[in-house]
């Protein structure tokens, strides 16, 4: 069963997202979307990523999504680097990754997490309502049963990320609430 699922992910990454959306879960789509985001975003210190051995994705307290990511990226590279998916529960372990996924359960820790991430040039992705307005760079949401995302463009710019307008064209742009 596990093997079958992995094959399914592989196909998912090769073939367009929309053609398989009926068969895959939202988590699967989100997992695939992560790699797609990295195509349109340059990290403030892109050279560091290039020099690194792996591209590290850290998941805070969301085992399901962690498993999905592990499965999806077992053989898939991001920015031509092998993907290292980690799961943490302690905020101290945030550092060292390039992309941090914040599950909806972390709403209360959101400020602290974004603060740490902002210091370490980590792109923050979340899947909770209003999370982008609260400080994550990109936040998934569902609209008409379709996984969409919103981008805090201002925050991305402040954090030193360079985002392609192409990505912004399909994203819902939000601003951080003060």
């Amino acid at each position: 069963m596990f093997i079958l699922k992995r094959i399914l992910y592989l196909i998912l990454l090769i073939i367009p997202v929309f053609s398989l959306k009926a068969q895959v879960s939202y988590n699967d789509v989100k997992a695939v979307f992560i790699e797609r985001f990295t195509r349109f975003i340059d990290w403030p210190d892109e050279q560091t990523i290039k020099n690194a051995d792996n591209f590290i994705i850290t998941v805070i307290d969301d085992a399901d999504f962690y498993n999905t990511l592990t499965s999806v990226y077992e053989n898939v590279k991001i920015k031509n680097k092998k993907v290292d998916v980690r799961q943490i529960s302690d905020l101290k372990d945030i550092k060292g990754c390039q992309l941090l996924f914040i599950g909806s359960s972390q709403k209360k820790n959101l400020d602290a997490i974004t603060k740490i991430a902002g210091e370490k040039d980590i792109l923050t992705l979340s899947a909770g309502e209003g999370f982008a307005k609260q400080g994550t760079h990109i936040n998934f949401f569902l609209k008409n049963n379709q996984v969409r995302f919103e981008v805090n463009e201002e925050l991305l710019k402040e954090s030193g990320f360079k985002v392609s307008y192409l990505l912004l064209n399909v994203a819902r742009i939000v601003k951080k609430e003060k």
Partner: protein
Amino acid sequence: MIRFENLSIKNKLIVLIVLTSVLVSVIALSFFSYLDVRSFKDELEQQGEINAHLIGNYCITPLTFGYADDARKILEELNTIPSIHNAFVYTEDNKLFAQYHKSPELAMDLPAIENKKSFYRNNYLHVFHEITFQGIKYGTVYFRISTSKIDEKITSMLYILIFLAVIVTIFSFIIAQKLQGIISKPLLHLSQLTKRVSEKDDYSIRIKQTGKDEIAHLQKGFNKMLEKLETRKDERDKAEQALRDSEEKYRQIVETAQEGIWIIDKKANTAFTNSRLVEMFGYSREEMLGKEFFTFMDDRYHMDAKKMLTNGKTLIPATNEFCFSKKNGDDIWVLMSTNPLYDDHKNYNGTLAMVADITDRKNNLKELEKYKNNLEKLVKQRTKKLREAQKELIRNEKMATLGKLTATVSHELRNPLGTIRSSFYTVQTRTKDKNLNIDRSLERIDRNISRCDNIIEDLLDYSRTKDLLFVEADIDSWFIEFFRDYQIPQNIELQTKLRSNAKTRIDLERFRRCIINLIDNACQAINGLDGEISHKNGIIKIITYVEKEHLLIDISDSGPGIAKENIDKIFEPLFSTKSFGFGLGLSVVRQVMDLHKGKISVKSQTDKGTTFSLKLPVSHYD
């Protein structure tokens, strides 16, 4: 239809200038229009590709995240560009992702992706653009762009072109009208002068030279040509005058020639005749020209003429006499000398014939021939008459001799003969019935006395010139009466066929003498010359009949006939084959026949007999 070459030089120049201007303008404008349209098309293509690129770029993220609605919204933005009728976005694996149609009427099916980026087909510009980002293919965008703008552009260009062509035509016509004079005026002047030269034959005209261009060269050349023409004209005039004089001289010679001159072409048709020839033949010149030579010829001479003119051409010069027919049907004899004529390539081209009328000469010759023949006949007649005269002379000479003899015989022989006869009569009377066996001798004496008496009688008859006493006598009755007295020897059979039934005027005594002479001769011919009665049987035939108003009496015997060498001499006096007599019997017959205006002729065949024919004019015929 007016042809270009028939136009005046002025109009030609105008037409050429206008045509050139319009042509150059149209070519130039067409070229620029073509470039403009081409550039417009390139621009359209470029814009199409740019738009495809932009739309493709905008579709990268919808394709990345599968947001087809986003892509559709992006495509709908194309409604601001009316020329784009259709647009499609394909996924990476060439499946439909999003589509756009300007209007439902213009909707179309998803076209298959082609390798070419853009191309024109079926009045549309088709643009395919591959959507890539950072080296990754996301899909393809396709535009179908209407080219109606290009058509509009071409149409407007065409209108401009026509408008400009009209403008150029008008302007170039006005300019050509003004400028053509530079070239046409000197040429027209030259043309007018040429016309004047040709019409008036005036080569003294010269044209005024203007400038130094080709027209000036032409003017100079024209003047030089006129100078030469003037010189040549003078020479030609002189030569023509000489030729005319010569022609006139020859014409006079030809027309006044005593001989006819006849030229026929290579098909033997008349090509030329002089006055003398038409006068000879009685035709007009028009009637003779074109007619075949042989049609004027008498049929009898066709063969000879054809021999001379084999296949209508004279092979060698020849002189022959021919007979032609005049228009009035009379024969005309001509002496014809013919000479073949040749063209510049030595090919036979006809014949020249000199014709002399020799009809009079021919007629004279005929007349002469006739005279010659008559003369010969006359000479023959005269010779004959001369011979007859000569014979007559001889006869007359013989007659003269006979005359003398007659005198002697009549006076000297008659009396002694009378004495002999009377003495013989006495002897005969006294010895009668005394059986002295001298009867035979006495008979011989009696016969010979009678013969001598006959000779004397003949001589007297022949020399007698007294007038004849003619009486009309029925000859057939006369013969019957005659044979009552005349005794024919017993061994001779007398056969008579008296069928004349005619009367003739005769001297009875003389005629009787003639008949006696002829019958005596016949009897002598049968019985022999000694006069003795032989035992041979013979026949004497007397036939009378009438032929052509003449009474004919044939006296035939069955004797030995007359020798051929003697037959012409038997009527001559003193000719005799007998051992006795003077040879006067037949001469007397002929003399008597002459006096009766009759004739005597003889036919004789050796061993078959002799026939004497007497011919006398008939005085009355029953």
